[in-house]
């Protein structure tokens, strides 16, 4: 493969002018349609579309939502799945208490001597959940004896006839005042509070000290297990609380026993 090879190497080789000429021809006269069709360009269009389609989906599902703090392909999925951590009843109650109650009962829960009764170690607070719930939902007026001193105040209502707080918020406040400042009362659950509200929302007059212990139902020992998921969701998402729904839906045995009594 010496001389012959060399000859072959040099023969039938395109010169640059020829390349340019052919190139111009190619540009001016696009390939004429032949019989049948060229498979590749059509396949290429479909492939291109397919790649774009897949790529778009891939970027959306695995692209971490284009966030600087998304570090894992599963970010979008996992990130959306994570619920915002729920605040405890105590924390909710603290917030509501400081906003609504602390003007009179004070931040330390000691009230103002002779005008606003204290909450610390008060039997009204620590005794029966329903008593406390009645006061909160409908308010209270008239004389009341707290820790040996007589007060004659006017406690406003926080139920629908007053400030219209949600059951969860009232339950939070009750839990807070029963457990803060050294108080060691039980927790008032949202479910319990819903039951009480179903019972007393209709009442428009405030309670008096004498009425408070009349007709009370047995105090729930543990949180009511028989919960109603619909109403829970409703309370998480909606601001307004639908009473009708609540009264219709199933409740704890509390209500039934109460109705039987009355």
């Amino acid at each position, binding site marked *: *493969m010496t001389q012959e090879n060399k000859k072959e190497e040099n023969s039938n080789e*395109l010169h640059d*002018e020829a390349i340019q000429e*052919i*190139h111009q021809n190619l540009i001016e006269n696009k390939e004429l349609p032949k019989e049948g069709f060229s498979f590749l360009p059509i396949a290429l269009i479909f*492939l*291109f579309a397919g790649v774009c389609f897949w790529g778009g989906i891939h*970027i959306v599902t695995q692209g971490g939502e284009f966030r600087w*703090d998304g570090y894992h*392909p599963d970010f979008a999925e996992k990130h959306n799945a994570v619920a915002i951590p729920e605040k405890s009843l105590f924390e909710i109650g603290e917030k509501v208490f400081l906003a609504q109650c602390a003007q009179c009962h004070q931040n330390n829960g000691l009230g103002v001597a002779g005008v606003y009764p204290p909450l610390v170690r008060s039997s009204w607070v620590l005794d029966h959940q329903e008593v406390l719930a009645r006061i909160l939902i409908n308010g209270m007026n008239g004389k009341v004896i707290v820790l040996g001193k007589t007060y004659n105040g006017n406690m406003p209502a926080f139920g629908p006839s007053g400030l219209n707080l949600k059951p969860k918020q009232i339950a939070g406040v009750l839990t807070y005042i029963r457990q803060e400042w050294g108080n060691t009362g039980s927790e008032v659950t949202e479910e319990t509070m819903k039951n009480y509200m179903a019972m007393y929302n209709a009442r428009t007059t405030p309670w008096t000290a004498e009425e408070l212990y009349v007709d009370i139902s047995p105090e729930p020992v543990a949180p009511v297990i028989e919960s109603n998921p619909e109403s829970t969701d409703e309370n998480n998402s909606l601001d307004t609380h639908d009473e009708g729904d609540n009264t219709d839906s199933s409740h704890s045995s509390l209500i039934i026993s109460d109705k039987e009594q009355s």
Partner: protein
Amino acid sequence: MSQPSTESSYDIRYELKSSINKAAFYFIISAITWLTLSSLFAVIGGIKFINPDFLSAYEGFTFGRIQAMLNSTLIMGWCSNAIFAVAFWIMARLSSTSIKHGGILLIAGVIWNIALTLGLIGIFIGDLTAFAWMEFPSYTSGIFLLAYTLIAVWGIVAYFNKENDYSYASQWYILGGLLWFPWIFVIGQFFLNWFPVRGVLQSIIHAWYINNIFYLWLCPIALGACYYFIPKLSSTPIRSYHMSALAFWSFVLFASWSGMSYLIGAPVPVWLTTTSIVFAIALVIPALIFYVNLIGTAFVNPNQLKNKLALKFITFGSVAFIVHLFIKMVLTFSSIDSVAHFTMIYEAHHWQLIYGFFSMIFFGAFYYLVPTLLNHSFKSYFLPNLNFLLSALGIIILLIALYVGGWQQGTQYNTAEISFLEIANNLTLWMQLKLAGLIILFIANVLFAFNLSTLLLCKLLDALPNFSNDKLNQNT
């Protein structure tokens, strides 16, 4: 070579010779020199994997510095000088014009090589940076940039002085590569060396730099050479040429976006790697068009392929490139990446691009260009053909060793029962195979240098009496 077809083609060639003759030879000779040196570094590095004590008494010959010198001589020495030689020549031919100011080109070429020499000395004495493929010390980067500006501008000027009012695919790639390189280089130097960014941003910019140096500097120029040489040598117009514009734009867009796939699993915002994976997969489109355009054209006349040395090299390189692109796509699959990451597979992937694709294309280009420039062809094609066989054999052995060995390495990394030391010991066979491949490549590269320099010497010896005759004639 012999018998120019028309008078005009002779004129063009003559003008070309007169204007950039010296500069072209300068770049060719320096490219060959750096290539030989780099493969020497590669062999030293390969020996160290089998016998770590080899040359380890000298700090400059420790593995890290040898590897840094290998990378620098490959990219800035062999690849860049080869690009300056071949790309300018193609640009001038296709623009039917000449490269002007060969003198400035020559001086700039000298400056470029001085920068590289300084860089190598810097690496040897320990001034290297911590970033692979840009290890040359930051004080040389300004010199590189200066030299590059003085060199590249003439290629771009040649394009804008073109006499015909259309452009050819080769010209797009070469013009693109010439314009993209300084941008990539400056961004890399600016954010990693001059005013280093902090934290993972460094890794992101580094991945971008490596990717773009490969896919927007080496690849476009080599593709430009393919689009020029394949139709020219096989005497066949490019098949489905009308799709080459789509291939150009899609390759440039997708390849430049696909860089962050090096960082799969790294603590970087995941949208970076996800978009890169998508764009890496999208490379299937240009890859298919390259297949039809380049390999389809080369195999139209298989006889040509047998007889033409340059075409053999270039076709081999094109096939290696298509395979490289498909491996790049496969490496982005998360199931594959979980094995392949941190293994020799990425090293293999780089070798495949730089040697399997780029170097093979440019060997072919040199085997065509040097005889043409000298107007003097090989007496025997035995040694050049041997060079092709050795290069092909060497790179195939090297790639098998690194890909298969890398896969074994990756699966063993993922098996908790096997200790790191055991994994390293299990790789001995593959390391020996790798060294064998590197040694074959070294022999092939030396043969390449030998072939071209004998051609050069023969021409000089032949030219001597003619030269004196010419002088005599002029004097009388």
